[in-house]
């Protein structure tokens, strides 16, 4: 199961398991991942997890910025909507979320052949 490893300023906070559905990240109390950081918008970004459009049995994880004031970055690059790969790090305010997905981990460095 993929997960986001949540840390802030180098300190590990929690593992967020990613299951089918969505997670709202922001400062508001009704957010699924509530961040205590003034540079974070009330409703900052949404992570959606759905069955993969690419490969059966896997999950596709997307992050979409909700027109936040200060934006959302992935590996330092500002994004609107982005599909997360193993190893990428999302930054929202001073919070970091590292994507860990063992299922697609090999796909990053090796060219894999799709079995029939």
């Amino acid at each position, binding site marked *: 199961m993929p997960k986001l490893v949540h840390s802030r300023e180098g300190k590990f906070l929690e593992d967020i398991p990613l299951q089918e559905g969505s997670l709202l990240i922001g400062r508001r109390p009704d957010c699924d991942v509530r961040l205590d950081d003034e540079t974070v918008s009330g409703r900052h970004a949404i992570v959606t997890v759905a069955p993969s*459009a690419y490969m059966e049995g896997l999950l596709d994880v997307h992050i979409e910025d909700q027109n936040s004031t200060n934006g959302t970055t992935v590996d330092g690059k500002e994004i609107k909507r982005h*599909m997360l790969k193993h190893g990428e790090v999302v930054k929202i305010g001073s919070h970091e979320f590292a994507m860990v997905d063992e299922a697609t981990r090999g*796909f990053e460095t090796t*060219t894999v052949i799709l079995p029939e």
Partner: protein
Amino acid sequence: MNTTIAYTVAMAGITDTGRAREHNEDAIAWDESRGLALLADGMGGHNAGDVASRLCIDTLNEILLPTLDKPLRLRPNKHMSRHATLARRAVNKANTAIYENAEANPARKGMGTTLAMVLFYDDKAVVAHVGDSRVYRLRGRELEQITADHSLVRELLEKGVISAEEAEDNPYSHVITKAVGVRPRVVAEVQEFATQPGDVFLLCSDGLTDLVDERDIAEALGAFAGHWQRAAQHLVDLANNHGGRDNISVVIAALGGPR
């Protein structure tokens, strides 16, 4: 000596480990006089990738180089020229060589390789490929990708399942749907084009195109025209300057004026 080629031929190439990998699993080879250029990007655990790519190139050279010295005896069929048929058959033999090697060496099970091939004859170019290594053609100032990647992402894009934006940078970018050596048989995609004086063909592995955009590639080929080894080095340098995340290979096959 393949004297049927209508134009003068100049070739150059480089393969580089890049900045992130320990080993180079790409393999390249070219023969100007016979008008043959080859590039393979290997994959497989325990460094079997370099066995696969090397075996692919070596097998193709063994079959093609002596065959190209004489007039081809193959019967052409109405769909494919003799040279195109030769290319397809040679790839199948390379496939068998790799597949059988893996059967005999369990640690290499599943190894395979991509392949990009350009073969000149008369005023034609046969372009064969398997996987996501590519062949581009620069004609005048226009760079065109003439091979369509055999990749999961491109196929889904074509079917309309995903958008161009989604195809850009996703975890499945390197999943290919065809490779040489992984199954008992493979059918290479073989195309044939009429050539013109001044055409420049570029074979490259995804280690180049993942990091360097086509505009910069076209510019490099234009800027270093006629100095193909330097052009090849420049392309590799560009990829390394952008991180060199994978092995980087390029082969340039350029046609001059009429022979």
